[in-house]
């Protein structure tokens, strides 16, 4: 296909307006589907659509080519209105090979658009995907709008005479060819991706040319081929005015930590050990050195926790980040932070467990580990961001609580928030919460475990300060003096004091807000990354006339002060969680209410339809 012959018939194509589209790109983990999806997302975001994404990739970097476990997918939902989830089911599936088709077809809407790369449907790939008969040849796909496109060959034809790169490199451009095709189909401009290609490959002019040629060729093919009779348009969304950028939870978490450091005027020290899905936070923070942030890739999870504690002792904003298995390893040292009453923040980007579990899939099953997973009576404060952009605010909140109350804080994100993207309404700097952090410097009368009247926080007196020389450690401390104490009464007093410190944070956090009526038949209570699905589902129920409200916890220890009262105002309380009912267990224990758990542990977020179905069931009971 030559790029000069394509500009016919353009005006004759029908353009159809859509409110929202959910596309899933699927291919081999080496096919560049994550990149393709990210580019489509950024282009749509810049165009003014609301967006929400769900990357879904295997834990293996390169599983055997063409195999079912090697399939990597990227789903995005873009719309002309406010959306909160990546969509229950794709309306469009792009399958780059038979395995991608096999893994994803069941999710595709009936009658949905199915675009396949016919070149990949050879005997070998069909066999690897477990197809006895080529599904493109029988009528098994008749329920979909099937578009059979020889993507590999078309891409080769477009690039062969244009660029001096190997045929292997040419084939690696085919994801951009497919992206170009999708850009035409959904009436997207190429600029954002063209700019990206030029920046990404600026050191290799041939690769710039190759990828640009592939992108334009895919676009031109769609425009010229008689395949598509219609293309689609999703207008910009009517979302809150302001300046936006596209952001993932991990990016927002890193930015929030930097913001905390700027707001507190204290340097950030991030100690971490590489672990999926938290490593991107280390990558991001290590690139922000001009903010004075120190990043330390430790020898293991324990060392990362201990170094963060050391940094906090030395007066820095001590931070470590990990996922569930790493949090388990940090638990002893976290106890040390509780005992020494130092302000450290521990990020746990939760993933499927137990053990190594499902490293690249999402889950919320570390809540009880965060609450209780340590020896002794060992309370820590816990916060959880609700959306990708909320990660920014909650990272700041974690440090605000840690430094004001002199307690360790666990921040529970998860794989869905970490890698999913959405538009972020950029905050104005002067609207960010100010929090003043002061070291203790007055030597006269200094006692390392003296107590603030309001918070019970102990003073933060750091090495280098004359006259405050003191010793802390993991052995029980005598209150006020901080001396080693094995005294029975003192131990009980200190156990209660450490608990009271965490409890008093409740005086310092906002009341829980209700989405919908403040009382009624059903309250749906969630926490963390399920906010988008729950809110959308509840909104749907409300529109259908059900007396359903929702509330979403971002502070999990302590709970907001009005939680108990709120729970009492509804006949039923439903608690959807991506675990087997951990928050529900806490609510039952704490408030003695028959909270109904709605668990899901499939490595995937809730679908709106799953939630509405469950709400209806509970509602009628």
């Amino acid at each position, binding site marked *: 296909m030559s790029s000069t012959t394509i500009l016919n018939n353009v005006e004759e194509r029908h353009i159809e307006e859509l409110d929202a589209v959910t596309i899933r790109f699927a291919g081999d983990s080496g096919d560049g589907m994550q990149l393709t999806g990210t580019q489509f997302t950024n282009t749509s975001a810049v165009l003014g659509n609301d967006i929400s994404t769900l990357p879904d990739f295997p834990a293996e970097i390169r599983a055997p080519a063409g195999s079912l476990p090697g399939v990597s997918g990227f789903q995005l939902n873009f719309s002309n209105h406010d959306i909160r989830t990546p969509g229950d089911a794709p309306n469009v599936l792009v399958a780059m090979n038979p395995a991608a088709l096999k893994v994803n077809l069941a999710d595709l809407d009936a009658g949905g658009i199915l675009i396949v790369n016919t070149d990949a449907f050879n005997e070998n790939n069909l066999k690897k995907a477990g197809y006895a008969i080529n599904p493109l040849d029988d009528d098994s796909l008749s329920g979909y709008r099937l578009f059979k496109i020889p993507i590999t060959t078309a891409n080769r034809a477009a690039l062969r005479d244009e660029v001096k790169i190997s045929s292997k490199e040419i084939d690696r451009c085919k994801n951009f060819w497919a992206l170009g095709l999708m850009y035409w189909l959904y009436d997207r401009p190429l600029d954002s991706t063209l700019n990206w290609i030029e920046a990404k490959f600026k050191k290799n002019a041939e690769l710039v040319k190759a990828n640009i040629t592939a992108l334009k060729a895919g676009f031109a093919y769609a425009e010229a081929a008689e395949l598509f009779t219609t293309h689609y348009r999703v207008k910009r969304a009517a979302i809150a005015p302001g300046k936006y950028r596209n952001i993932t939870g991990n990016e927002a978490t890193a930015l929030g930590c930097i913001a905390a450091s700027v707001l507190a005027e204290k340097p950030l020290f991030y100690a971490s050990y590489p672990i999926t899905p938290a490593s991107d936070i280390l990558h991001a923070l290590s690139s922000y050195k001009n903010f*004075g942030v120190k990043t330390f890739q430790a020898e293991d999870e324990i060392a990362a926790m201990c170094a963060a504690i050391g940094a906090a002792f030395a007066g820095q904003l001590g931070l470590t980040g990990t996922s569930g298995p790493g949090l388990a390893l940090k638990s002893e040292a976290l106890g040390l932070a509780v005992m020494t009453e130092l302000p450290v923040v521990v990020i746990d980007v939760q993933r499927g467990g137990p053990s190594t579990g499902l490293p690249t899939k999402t889950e919320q099953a570390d809540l009880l580990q965060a609450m209780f997973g340590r020896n002794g009576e060992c309370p820590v404060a816990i916060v959880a961001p609700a959306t990708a952009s909320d990660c920014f605010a909650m990272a700041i909140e974690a440090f605000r609580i840690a430094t004001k109350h002199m307690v360790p804080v666990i921040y529970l994100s998860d794989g869905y928030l970490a890698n999913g993207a959405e538009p972020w309404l950029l905050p104005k700097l002067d609207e960010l919460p100010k929090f003043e952090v002061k070291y203790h410097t007055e030597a006269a009368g200094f006692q390392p475990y003296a107590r603030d009247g309001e918070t019970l926080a102990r003073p933060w007196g750091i090495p280098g300060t004359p006259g405050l020389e003191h010793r802390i450690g993991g052995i029980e401390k005598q209150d006020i003096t901080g001396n080693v104490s094995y005294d029975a009464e003192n131990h009980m007093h200190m156990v209660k004091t450490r608990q009271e410190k965490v409890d008093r944070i409740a005086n310092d956090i906002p009341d829980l807000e209700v989405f919908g009526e403040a009382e009624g038949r059903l309250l749906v209570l969630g926490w963390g990354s399920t906010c988008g699905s729950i809110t959308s589902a509840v909104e749907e129920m409300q529109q259908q006339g059900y007396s359903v409200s929702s509330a979403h916890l971002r502070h999990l220890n302590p709970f907001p002060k009005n939680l108990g009262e709120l729970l009492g105002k509804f006949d039923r309380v439903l608690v959807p969680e991506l675990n087997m009912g951990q928050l529900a267990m806490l609510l039952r224990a704490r408030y003695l209410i028959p909270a109904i758990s709605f668990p899901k542990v499939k490595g995937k977020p809730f679908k709106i339809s799953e939630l509405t179905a469950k709400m209806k069931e509970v509602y009628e009971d």
Partner: protein
Amino acid sequence: MSANIENTNGGNGDAAPVKLTRKDYVSDQEVRWCPGCGDYAILAQVQKVMPELGIKRENTVFVSGIGCSSRFPYYMNTYGFHSIHGRAPAVATGIKASNPELSVWVITGDGDALSIGGNHLIHAIRRNLDINILLFNNRIYGLTKGQYSPTSEFGKKTKSTPFGVIDYPLNPLSVALAAESTFVARSVDTFTTHLQEMVERAMRHKGVSFVEIYQNCNIFNDHAFDMFTERAVKDDRTISLEHGKPLVFGKEKNRGVKMRSDMHLEVVELNDTTTEADLIVHNEKAPDSYLAYMLSRMEYPDYPVPIGVFRDVEKPTYEDLLESQIESAIAKLGPGSLEKLINSGDTWVIE
């Protein structure tokens, strides 16, 4: 090490420098080691040396793990952190990397450093943070009442090995050298002057300093080192390493250590045919650690036990490299602007 070389008596940064004494480093806490423990001697020497080192007391931090030796920070009137088992090097890393001005000391034992904390020890060493690690080696678990440690001798009968230890011991100095320690030394709790000297040398070395101190546990492993540290035998059974000098030892200075052609160290008598010129000349500054490693393998009774500085070389420290990365990032990009950072990447405006 810290550039703050004045001493103050603390409490008032503006006070005229006052010469501190050993007493200024004694905390108000009652020392609770068993009477007769070697730890007392080590504590006394460290407290004695500290005022001579030219570091402000408030800039001094002692960090420890768990074990008898790890109670040490409570008895030093400096900043102190009694952390958890094996993790002192990691805590110390966080402290030193955060504030390079601080003089950071790690107090650890053979179980703490080489068993539960082995990983942290080797990585703290290889990063070459300017911290000083004092490993009290008594070849036994004392605080848990008498189990064998990673440095206990093969075959040793202990509470947990009534039929004898069947795992082979680690040599702490060999481990430190393998981890590329830039300063490695050994001393003995009862060799007070020598110990003071080693502590001072460790402090003056810029980069990680690793000092093994043979320390007697008079309850669970008494007399562990007597066979070569007792006054009557020590000159014949230890050898004091001195930079640039041949390896000579013995009461009469009549014995030495030479390198055989098959790369083995051999103890020889000095006489008319074998002279000091035949002996190894100690070189603690050697860029490679081969000689230091061979010396670390010399054990009683086959060899005299070396004490002193095995290795003392310089290379850039972790904390300096970390600071310089920050400085160059600022020089290149300017000081971080939160406004700019938030607004970076592809942005768009909704009217």
